[in-house]
């Protein structure tokens, strides 16, 4: 039942009891009036009339009193129903809640839910509920703050948040520790106060850049309250809330990095100096070598020439005085002169192979190999020699130098197949990973792979000169030429199973077409 309905019922009871009272009064009044008219003529009945009159008035008063009591009882019953308890009880609850105490429980009997006490109970429950929510929200805010505080304090560097008027709003403990300013001092600082000189101008530009573009970073020296300068890397980000713009940023101490960079620079400088010294030493060594090869070509040849020429003159002009043995001995002398001359030539060639600047061009390797082969083949006389020349990639190389590589490798192949009935020399090639690779394979004497590493050394021989002639410098020249080109050379072999020589040359420009095949 709603309070309005209750009020209606209450008013209705009031009306009914009022009407009852009026009706009862009216009835008695009419009754009294008729009795008066009847008895007026009869004096005898005057006494009874009087008595009866008193009785009638008493009855009217009684009826009125009864009516009023009924009314009061209804009023009481209805108001108690509306209040939901006694007035004292309701008053006590209201004054308790008025004093801010919402803790005690209002016990409601069935049907009291829609009474004043019911309302009080509901209101108290609602107030308690919203208070709980408020406390929860407060607790949430506190934990959020705690979390963000722990977060920014746990950051390895410094953290800060300031607005467009350059006033710090939040920062972490590191900020205070590094800057040397107290909490209140930081609050009164501008970010620019932490920098000086060019850095300050730079910071001003970068802060403006953050507010304009959204983000920026900068490396600068942070100047603490005590004037200590520490290199920092700052990263700033623009954020917006409640329609205002802020700069949130972190700064990381980069002194270690700066120090390491300085050390690296120093090391580099030292290294460069050492390289310079070594280069100078090397250059002087190279100069010595050049001087040496020059004197080899001049000064060693002159005495050789004298030995050979005077021997020749002796043989020519004094042959009569020499017996056969004397002539043979002079021939031995002259044969050794030839050997020595070859050695000198090879040394010179070797020193030039490393000294000369390379003139790069695109070299048709198959054509060059064929040309060189034909040239040295002519000196071999009537031997069965088969050259299997495959398609070879063209090379970017110094033609003269690479010619020497082919000449030495093919001459070797011819030399070491001399004892074969039929010499087979295979030349193949291809491009692998941007590198031109070439292979020369023969079916000659081969070599002991145990000593393969000595093949490319100067004056290294794996066969005796009696077996196969040579100064042992050809492959050293090959290696030197390929080294200069940035290429490589290596060999595989087994005694009696022939030898395989591989060499590579890096490509300087990509090529689409391969060299001619023969």
């Amino acid at each position, binding site marked *: 039942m709603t309070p309005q309905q209750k009020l209606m019922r209450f008013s209705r009871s009031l009306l009914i009891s009022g009407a009852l009272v009026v009706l009862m009064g009216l009835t008695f009044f009419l009754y009294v009036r008729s009795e008066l008219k009847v008895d007026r003529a009869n004096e005898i009945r005057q006494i009874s009339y009087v008595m009866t009159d008193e009785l009638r008035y008493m009855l009217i008063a009684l009826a009125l009193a009864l009516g009023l009591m009924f009314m009061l009882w209804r009023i009481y019953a209805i108001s108690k129903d509306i209040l939901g308890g006694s007035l004292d009880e309701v008053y006590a609850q209201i004054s308790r809640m008025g004093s801010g105490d919402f803790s005690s429980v209002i016990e409601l009997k069935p049907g009291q839910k829609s009474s004043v006490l019911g309302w009080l109970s509901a209101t108290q429950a609602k107030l308690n509920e919203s208070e709980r929510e408020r406390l929860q929200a407060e607790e949430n805010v506190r934990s959020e703050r705690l979390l963000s505080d722990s977060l920014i304090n746990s950051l390895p560097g410094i953290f800060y948040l300031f607005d467009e008027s350059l006033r710090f709003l939040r920062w972490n403990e590191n900020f205070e520790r590094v800057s040397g300013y107290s909490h209140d001092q930081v609050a009164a600082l501008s970010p620019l106060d932490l920098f000086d000189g060019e850095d300050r101008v730079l910071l001003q530009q970068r802060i403006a850049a953050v507010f304009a573009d959204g983000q920026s970073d900068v490396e600068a020296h942070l100047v603490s309250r005590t004037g200590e300068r520490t290199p920092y890397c700052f990263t700033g980000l623009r954020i917006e809330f409640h329609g205002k713009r802020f700069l949130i940023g972190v700064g990381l101490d980069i002194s270690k990095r700066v120090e390491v960079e300085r050390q690296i620079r120093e090391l580099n400088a030292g290294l460069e100096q050492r390289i310079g010294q070594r280069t100078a030493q090397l250059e002087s060594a190279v100069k010595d070598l050049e001087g040496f090869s020059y004197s080899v070509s001049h*000064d060693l040849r002159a005495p050789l020439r004298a030995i050979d020429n005077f*021997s*020749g003159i002796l043989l020519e002009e004094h042959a009569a005085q020499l017996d056969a043995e004397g002539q043979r001995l002079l021939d031995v002398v002259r044969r050794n002169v030839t050997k020595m001359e070859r050695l000198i030539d090879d040394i010179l060639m070797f020193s030039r192979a490393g000294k000369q600047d390379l003139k790069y061009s695109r070299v048709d390797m198959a054509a060059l190999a064929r040309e060189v082969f034909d040239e040295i083949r002519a000196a071999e006389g009537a031997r069965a020699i088969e050259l299997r020349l495959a398609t070879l990639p063209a090379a970017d190389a110094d033609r003269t130098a690479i010619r020497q590589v082919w000449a030495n490798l093919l001459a070797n192949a011819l030399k070491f197949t001399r004892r074969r009935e039929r010499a087979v020399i295979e030349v193949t090639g291809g491009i692998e990973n941007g590198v031109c690779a070439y292979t020369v394979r023969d079916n000659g004497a081969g070599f002991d792979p145990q000593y393969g590493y000595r093949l490319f050394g100067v004056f290294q021989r794996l066969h005796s000169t009696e077996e196969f002639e040579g100064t042992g410098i050809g492959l050293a020249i090959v290696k030197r030429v390929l080294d200069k080109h940035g290429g490589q050379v290596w060999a595989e072999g087994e005694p009696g199973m022939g030898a395989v020589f591989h060499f590579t040359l890096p490509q300087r420009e990509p090529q689409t077409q391969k060299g001619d095949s023969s």
Partner: protein
Amino acid sequence: MSNEKGDILLVEDSDDEAEIVIRTLKSKGVANEVHWVKDGADALDFIYAKGKYQGRDPRRLPQVVLLDLQLPKLDGLEVLRKIRGDARLKLLPVVMLTSSTQQEDIVRSYELGVNSYVAKPVKFEEFSKVVEHLGMYWLLINRRPEL
């Protein structure tokens, strides 16, 4: 043939080398006189008839100068430069006769205006042939301007 009496100036510091050249020239029948000097300074003295060659007729210039590169005092290239720098001598035939086969030396000699560059072979037979050819060519075949 003309210039039969023309001389040869051999500039060579090695006694043995000089002997081989002179001997070979003689043995190949070259009758012209060979003047042999042992360094660059002497070579210029001979040409200008100065110093120990004061008594020489300076107008009588050699038919050809055979010039070694490495010489005491003035080296071969220096001598060549002096000769080419002299208006009267600049047309004098000069042949480099040297052990060096260095490209550098050949280029420098030609830059300074040498008439020929000959590397001495080591082998007796080849050297004899080269010297014979040289004598034949510069003394008998080649004609030089009157100086």
